[in-house]
């Protein structure tokens, strides 16, 4: 079971200062599965992604990626704290796209994409450039190679950010509210791009989003998350159309009223 999973959270707890964000989280994601996490703001959804990206460390519990623990290794037959090299090795399997894009403002678009392959993977610059141009073409921004991030619209920035994450060939992609900072029309363009990506690649994908229509289109499974725990999960039609839990129903009616 453990070896078959792409991602596995086992009894994970995470607190900030004294606020409990995640409590006893168990979540298993299969290879190539597309899981959408929904839930109220501040419910800890993004923390799940940040933990996988090693931007945060759990207080307790274990996180496995492709069967290997993120933060622990076996040394001399005993479990031990993983060294930075192990964490980096694990991190290389995961890519992430952020709500606020987080492009590097001091680098042109092309360099935003090539910098990590060249520095981190030690890829020859010519190869990195070729690959970056392919990726820019794929996200529809082939003509923006030499632009500065400040010259791009929000939707264009997010597409560059997606290309930048793809350039490192992750097995797992995390999308953290990637359209929350965008206008609805621009948002659907970005989401369509992600839908294509999901159809054409083998990556395991985790989404945190408020876009229910997108969730229905992309999700193999929808997870409703509230107050640090999973309340309900199932296929998109199960969770979004006939939820069994009162909290899920309440949340969904609030979302529908808002949109």
């Amino acid at each position, binding site marked *: 079971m453990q070896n078959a999973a792409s991602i596995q959270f086992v009894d994970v707890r995470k607190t900030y200062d004294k606020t409990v964000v995640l409590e006893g989280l168990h979540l298993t994601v299969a290879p190539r599965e597309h899981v959408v996490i929904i839930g109220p703001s501040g419910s800890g959804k993004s923390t799940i992604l*940040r933990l996988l*990206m*090693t*931007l945060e460390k759990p207080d307790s519990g274990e996180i496995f990626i492709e069967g290997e623990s993120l933060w622990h290794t076996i040394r001399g037959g005993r479990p031990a704290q993983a060294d930075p090299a192990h964490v*980096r090795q694990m*991190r*290389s399997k*995961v*890519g*992430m796209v*952020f709500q*606020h*894009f*987080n*492009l*590097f*403002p*001091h680098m042109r678009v092309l360099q935003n994409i090539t*910098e*990590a392959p060249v*520095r*981190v993977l030690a890829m020859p610059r010519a190869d990195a450039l070729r690959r970056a141009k392919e990726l820019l073409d794929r996200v529809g921004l082939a003509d923006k190679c030499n632009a*500065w991030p*400040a*010259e791009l619209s929000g939707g264009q920035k997010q597409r560059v950010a997606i290309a*930048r*994450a793809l350039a*490192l060939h992750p097995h797992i992609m995390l999308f953290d509210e990637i359209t929350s900072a965008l206008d609805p029309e621009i948002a659907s363009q970005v989401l369509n791009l992600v839908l294509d990506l999901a159809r054409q690649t083998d990556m395991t994908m985790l989404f945190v989003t408020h876009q229910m229509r997108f969730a229905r289109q992309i999700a193999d499974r929808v997870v409703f998350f509230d107050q640090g725990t999973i309340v309900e999960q199932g296929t998109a039609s199960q969770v979004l159309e006939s939820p069994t839990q009162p909290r899920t129903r309440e949340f969904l009616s609030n979302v529908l009223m808002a949109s």
Partner: protein
Amino acid sequence: MIWNWPFAWQILPIILRGMVITVEATVLGMLLALVLGLIWAGLLLLPNRWIFWPTRAVTEFIRDTPLLIQLFFCYYVLPEVGITIPALVTGITVLGINYSAYTAEVYRAGLQNIPRGQWDAAKALNFNPWQTFSRIIVPQALPPIVPAMGNNLIAMFKDTPLLSTITVMEMLNRAMIIGDKTFRYLEPLTIVGILFLIISLLASALIGITQRKLLVRRQ
């Protein structure tokens, strides 16, 4: 007292030779302050209190003791324990270390202004800590702090006359020696003052240009 032009022209080359030393001390001292200050600021960013507090203590100590005493200590006390360093080298080193405590604060302000998302993105792309610092964070932190660094540079430049107290033959020292010998202080001290003014104005202009260049490049 009347300004004596022939005398002024006669002593100008002597004082200009002192200016070379003044500028040399400022440039080398500032280079040291820039490098050392970045190291302090980097150490103060590390989430380790065994590094943070000793670093904090060192920079605080440097800032809370007078530069003149630091100079005297290194020039007159260190030889007593067998460490003898030439006056100019002592002067440059003490200036550099002293100002590193101030440049560290400027760097820190610049680094704290970098949004957390930049650190997150750097980590998500698997840059190691050194690559993150040198390729992502520092290049963004530098342009906004150029004016504050420039102020430090000019302040250090104006502190170089203190080196005359440890026998460095910079501008003021030469002017005073001329005055002591000829009993004319008006011309040498005026020349020194004007030279300081000219170089300071040139430096501020240069700093302004540098900052505009750095900001334009990003848009």
